[in-house]
């Protein structure tokens, strides 16, 4: 079991550019959540995808969008990059139908630097 995988591991962009980050969930999981973690802060929830639809969304602008594919993998897109978008972007997967005990499994993240 490969667990949650993310690509790329690192990325450097300039202000105004667009970026796409990718995530493959843990085997057997069909829900993908994205988090942004700025340096020294805890991860902040961006949005969650289940059955190819956005189910929940955090307090992030529309520049942040996503997609989930039929194989449950997901993309995070950020348009018009700002310096403040520099962060570690984490993907987490979980079973779609919640049980009593649920955990989310995180990938290693993509480190985005905006210059």
């Amino acid at each position, binding site marked *: 079991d490969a667990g*949650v995988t993310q690509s790329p591991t690192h990325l450097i962009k300039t202000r105004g550019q667009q970026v796409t980050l990718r995530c493959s969930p843990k085997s057997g999981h069909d*829900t993908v*959540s994205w*988090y942004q973690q700025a340096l*020294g*802060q*805890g*991860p*902040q*929830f961006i949005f*969650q995808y*289940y059955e190819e639809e956005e*189910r*929940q969304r*955090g307090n992030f602008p529309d520049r942040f969008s996503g997609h989930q594919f039929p194989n449950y993998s997901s993309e995070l897109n950020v348009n018009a990059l700002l310096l403040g978008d520099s962060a*570690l972007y*984490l*993907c*987490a997967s*979980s*079973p*779609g*139908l*919640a049980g*009593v*005990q*649920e*955990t*989310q*499994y*995180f*990938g*290693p*993240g993509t*480190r985005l630097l905006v210059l």
Partner: protein
Amino acid sequence: LAKTTQPISMDSYEGQEVNITCSHNNIATNDYITWYQQFPSQGPRFIIQGYKTKVTNEVASLFIPADRKSSTLSLPRVSLSDTAVYYCLVGDLNYGGATNKLIFGTGTLLAVQP
């Protein structure tokens, strides 16, 4: 969502037991308490989860008093490799029948020294 308060940092030595307490005065009936561990430049890793009383697994124990307004993560005999940030999360696990989002605070940086 219940707000959590935990120490910003803690120091310990190898072989000691470490207890990290988290306050969550506004915890709701449906809320569970979950702890995650995070190493630098890695994603958070689930440690333990509980609703009440005591939960123990191969990694840690979680103590929750009857009023559930606080919880304590106990790490037995820590080693240098336990140096990490530990997050206490409180929330309903379910959102419309699916997994709910996680709300992280700033966590507790545990530094284990030789």
